[in-house]
């Protein structure tokens, strides 16, 4: 990789308040020490140390010395690490990630970052790396890879402000962040690592993967396997960005999200997985499934977020938390199943969206505006994967993908509009004739029949196995022209209750035994 390709000056102009000069070849002592130690730890496979340096030292140094400038160039630090090719690729990956996070990368830098990922992944795919890296780092690689792809597509679609130079560069490097490239890399990582077979064999007791958190204790490398694993989440994410929810979920199938696993070992990955899983299920109208998973992760975040306050991912965690509350609100408004929601989550929900939820249950224009608002806030940043035709007039079309998904979502909401009205009546009556209900709802009987059938159709979704599942908390059936209402009772969990009380009583008895009576 030639050093001359980096246009530092250009990049800095947009991001520095006058006067700070950046010399890419100057390596301050702390950085020297950082790379030397990191290199040594990677060579010696001290995963714990690597993790500390990666998670903490890198960010401390960034905060202290590189708030507004990039880290020293890889060429400058290479001499301290034996010019190790792989280490340089890793360093560069971190370099670009820092750039994206703190500064605004130029088009050239975006393209170069793509080149770096290609080189890095190719090295991994050729099976020649001899390292153990912390799962956090490996997750961040996949996460950042997809993020930069999404960001590039958004950038590319904003044609209005493009200069001649930019367009020439885009034409020349049409392979950079090409959707085929991105998807095929993720697919290749997944396949080459044989992760699906490994997970399968693990179920049969023939392999160890989840038990060791993906790490290889027999002297090998965890890099390909774990990258392959996280690529499944990466594929789910990319497919959601494209609007293909069905395939996204299919890509995630080998991972059992109800179990602890490598995906839950890194909080960023855990949240990203559930967020996209839940969103995909929402768009597939499997509301109960979405509610269940959102509930679980929100409980988890509620209990554990205090431990992540110092971590660099904290902000992201909070952001996703808020977005998932919004998605949960949408799900519960379309499919009221409050008994599926934990107390703590419920009270948070009431606080944030209680009022909005009430208004969303009405079938008027205001409720649409609220669905629009919440969806727009919480949805992924959809992309248009194809490159623009650079010969056509320059317009911004980066919002097109989002607008389409929003439009189709609101279309669905509209079709379900009447359902909440029906529900309010079903809540009150145990039987009611079609004639009467029609007059209350101010529609004719045959319209009422269609509304009731719509209710049935929309509340009974088709599961992944093709079977019909009921999402309705209030159900009914019609006997010719009389509606009989059936309320689904939440099953009383006697078993759990007794178990808890037995253990409690035993503890009390134990305490009493210990009391010595004077």
């Amino acid at each position, binding site marked *: 990789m030639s050093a001359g390709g980096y246009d530092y000056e250009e990049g800095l102009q947009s991001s520095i308040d006058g006067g700070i000069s950046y010399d890419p070849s100057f390596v301050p002592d702390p950085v020297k020490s950082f790379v030397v130690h990191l290199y040594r730890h990677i060579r010696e496979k001290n995963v714990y140390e690597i993790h500390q340096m990666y998670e903490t030292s890198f960010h401390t140094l960034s905060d202290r010395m590189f708030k507004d400038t990039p880290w020293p160039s890889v060429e400058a630090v290479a001499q301290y690490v034996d010019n190790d090719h792989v280490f340089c690729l890793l360093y560069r990956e971190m370099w670009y990630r820092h750039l994206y996070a703190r500064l605004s990368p130029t088009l050239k830098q975006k393209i170069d970052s793509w080149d770096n990922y290609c080189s890095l992944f190719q090295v991994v795919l050729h099976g020649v790396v001899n390292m153990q890296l912390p799962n956090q780092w490996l997750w961040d690689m996949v996460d950042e890879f997809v993020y930069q792809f999404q960001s590039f597509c958004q950038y590319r679609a904003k044609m209005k402000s493009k200069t001649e130079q930019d367009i020439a560069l885009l034409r020349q490097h049409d392979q950079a962040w090409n959707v085929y490239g991105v998807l095929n890399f993720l697919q290749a990582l997944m396949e080459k690592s044989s992760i699906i077979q490994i997970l399968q064999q693990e179920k049969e007791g023939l392999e160890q993967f989840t038990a060791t958190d993906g790490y290889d204790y027999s002297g090998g490398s965890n890099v390909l396997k774990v990258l392959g694993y996280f690529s499944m989440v990466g594929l789910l994410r990319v497919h959601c960005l494209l609007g293909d929810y069905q395939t996204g979920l299919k890509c995630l199938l080998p991972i059992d999200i109800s179990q602890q696993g490598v995906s839950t070992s890194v909080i960023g990955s855990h949240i990203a997985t559930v967020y996209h899983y839940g969103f995909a299920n929402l768009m597939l109208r499997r509301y109960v499934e979405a509610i269940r998973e959102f509930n679980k992760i929100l409980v988890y975040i509620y209990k554990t977020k205090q431990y992540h306050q110092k971590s660099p991912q904290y902000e992201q965690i909070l952001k996703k938390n808020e977005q998932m509350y919004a998605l949960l609100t949408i799900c519960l408004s379309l499919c009221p199943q409050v008994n599926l929601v934990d107390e703590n989550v419920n009270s948070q929900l009431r606080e944030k969206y209680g009022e909005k939820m009430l208004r969303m249950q009405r079938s008027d224009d205001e409720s649409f505006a609220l669905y629009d608002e919440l969806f727009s806030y919480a949805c992924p940043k959809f992309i248009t994967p194809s490159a623009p035709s650079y010969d056509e007039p320059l317009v911004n079309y980066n919002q097109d993908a989002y607008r389409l998904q929003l439009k189709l979502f609101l279309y669905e909401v509209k079709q379900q509009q009447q359902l909440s009205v029906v529900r309010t009546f079903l809540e009150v009556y145990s039987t009611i004739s079609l004639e009467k209900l029609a007059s209350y709802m101010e529609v004719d009987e045959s319209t009422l029949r269609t509304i009731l059938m719509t209710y049935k159709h929309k509340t009974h979704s088709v599961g992944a196995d093709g079977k019909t599942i009921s999402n309705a908390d209030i*159900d009914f059936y019609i006997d010719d022209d009389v509606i009989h209402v059936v309320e689904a009772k939440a099953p009383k969990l006697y078993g759990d209750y007794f178990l808890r009380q037995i253990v409690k009583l035993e503890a009390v008895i134990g305490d009493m035994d210990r009391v010595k009576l004077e």
Partner: protein
Amino acid sequence: MARDVLTVQASTVASESATKPHTLSLVQKEHSGRRKIKMGREAPSQSQMSYTVEQLVAVNPYNPDILPDLENYVNEQVSSQTYSLNANLCLLRLYQFEPERMSTQIVSRILIKALMAMPAPDFSLCLFLIPERVQMDEQFKTLIVLSHYLETAKFCQFWDEAAKNRHILEVVPGFEQAIQEYAVHVLSLTYQKVSRSVVAEAINVEGVSLDKFIEQHVANSGWVVEGKGKLVSLPRNEFNHPELKRTSSAQSIPLDRITRIFPVLG
């Protein structure tokens, strides 16, 4: 050049398993500082020709070369009255990646097939992948309207509109039967007993044909005719007979929870 410590010497690495002939080749061409990464399939070998479309979709879906195969597959689905959502989604994705290659005729067929898959949400899933301006096309607008009627159980309006657009729909054999099946499905969710006229409206069949239809379902699907022929009793299922709903398995307690009280039980 200094030896890379973090990579294993090439000679000690087990040779890459080249089991699949369609393994992606990541070819890197370095040409006067300009880097070009080429992603594509290696030249098809003999055994590749025998891969079915389903296999292609499962193993190598992000590949522009399979687009013609997928298009042929859509036509095959139409003529042999089969259906594959995954293959069709794969094709719609490729159209998304390369909009100039899109064929509205094929997309129309995919959408009609998706309609026939109701109550599954396949139609929406397809729409998510079709750009808005394409959806403005007349025949797609019609299909969207038809889908809307079906989603909101407006069967009367549906059959009217379908009749007006027979030329679009008759391309796909089996359309009518598929929609009738969906209509019966919705009726079965909703009614224990339903009047003949409602059934007639839902499946768009009258008179003698209606008698035959009902007869068939009496013979094969457990329908019962009552009320001097005016009422049809639909087979009992857990949706129109909620008392049949299996009591939730929450009544069973997983073993690991019981272990909590093992110390108590002594």
